[in-house]
């Protein structure tokens, strides 16, 4: 069968499913505090956007996510490089890592809020904690993935270990690192929202909770929609960076890896 790809049909399907949703809610008289119709969600989205309240909290959550992502990724890259470089460092750090890895990082969020307060810092730390592992694992695996013949070639040219790292191991690890970054970004947003759920003065997660308390489910849906758009946009940025950085990786391993890990979340 020929593969069908019609952008128009895509839009029709989307509109149709929204119409079915709208009709079902109205005909079955489902109360708006259980499932609001798309029209109400749209109205809530419009109101919150025009009043500027969504945007204000959007920036805060975005900042928490990006700062947490940057912090977690930097530490993960440094620790991952150390682990890959030295078997003895791996030997001594391994018990800590296994211990840390086996704890669901989300469960640490209350502790983090106690330590770092209700402000942005605790969300950044929580985002960093949760986004740390995907990149750590991928950095270690990636740096060890360099082809043995290529290592032999570099050695036969009497390259130093630093040169082998810079000219061979790091580029070889890039597909893995990019995949790790994509997952870390998704996780980081989760970390920021969880941090806001536990205790916050601002942010989209805090706003979702306050809408929930006031039974404003349409407002909640509008916020979920905004979070979805944010996640998509962040991912799109990383994908376009990956395409540029990994132009030489025809297999695009990164894409496959990232997809599989993200799906598991």
């Amino acid at each position, binding site marked *: 069968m020929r593969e069908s790809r019609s952008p128009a049909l895509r839009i029709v399907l989307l509109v149709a499913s929204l119409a079915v949703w709208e009709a079902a809610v109205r005909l079955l008289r489902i109360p708006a505090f259980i499932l609001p119709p798309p029209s109400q969600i749209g109205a809530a989205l419009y109101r919150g956007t025009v009043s500027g309240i969504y945007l204000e909290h959007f920036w805060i959550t975005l900042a928490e996510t990006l700062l947490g992502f940057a912090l977690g990724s930097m530490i993960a890259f440094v620790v991952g490089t150390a682990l890959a470089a030295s078997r003895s460092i791996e030997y001594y750090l391994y018990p800590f890592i296994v211990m840390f890895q086996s704890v669901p990082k989300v469960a640490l969020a209350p502790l983090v809020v106690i330590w770092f307060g209700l402000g942005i810092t605790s969300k950044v730390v929580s985002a960093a904690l949760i986004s740390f592992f995907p990149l750590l694992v991928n950095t270690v695996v990636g740096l060890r993935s360099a*082809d043995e*013949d*290529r290592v*032999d*070639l*570099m*050695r*036969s*040219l*009497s*390259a130093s270990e630093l*040169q082998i790292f810079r*000219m*061979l191991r790091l*580029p070889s690890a890039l597909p893995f690192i990019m995949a790790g970054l994509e997952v870390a970004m998704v996780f980081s947003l989760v970390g920021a929202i969880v941090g806001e759920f536990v205790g916050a003065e601002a942010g989209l997660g805090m706003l979702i909770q306050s809408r929930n308390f006031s039974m404003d489910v349409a407002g909640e849906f509008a916020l979920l929609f905004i979070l979805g758009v944010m996640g998509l946009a962040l991912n799109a940025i990383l994908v376009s960076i990956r395409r540029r950085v990994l132009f*030489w*990786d*025809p297999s695009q391993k990164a894409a496959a890896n990232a997809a599989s890990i993200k799906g598991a979340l």
Partner: protein
Amino acid sequence: MGHSADVIAVKGLRKEYQTPRGTVLALDEIEFNVAEGEFVAIVGPSGCGKSTLLKILAGLVPATRGEVKLHSVSITGPRRDIGMVFQSPVLFPWRTVLDNVLLPVDVQKLGRESNRSRALELLAVVGLQGFEHRYPWELSGGMQQRVALSRGLIHNPAMLLMDEPFGALDAMTRESLNLELQRIWLERRETILFITHSIAEAVFLADRVLIMTPRPGRITEHIPVSIPRPRALDVISVPEFGGIVRRIRSHFSAKNGMEA
């Protein structure tokens, strides 16, 4: 043999590996010399220790016993004046063809600017003029191996080690690369040690063929090939060629998996 013009001098070389099941003797009593500008081929079946020998010569693996000298200096580790070409091209996909050729220049900090024209020259010699800004994955296997050959020569090595460089290519590409390698060698007179499991390839290319037998790897005979150069592909039909091939093949039983 053993005069000062020797680039490589190997004496009493022995290599043992420690495995959980005991010591394995990979190479034993290896002795040979390669003179300046000489093209020497080592022919032997898979698993006879050819690649181990090459790694010892490249300074990647230490010998258990014996002497390996390059220009009368013992090889104790990797050296800057050895070029290597492997069975697979071993190119870096994130580097352009030109940058791949310049890899030894970058590693040994020989100056990119001064070597750029040299790299372009080498690429022209192997017939890759105009491909310098392409990436390896845009080239065929044979073209990739030509890039690897240029890279092996860029830093003017005293010795070019080639480990079954055309073994992974199809027969036609392999023949044309054999012809080209001969042409390049006739122009430049590099000192080449060429490892192969194809008897015909060894006889076609080399001034001298060393026969290596397995378990443990030993060099059992040196056979000079005095067929005049340049040799054409139909040299195979010359009686002298057939004679040498038969003489080499008599060293190996059929089960050793040798190519003609």
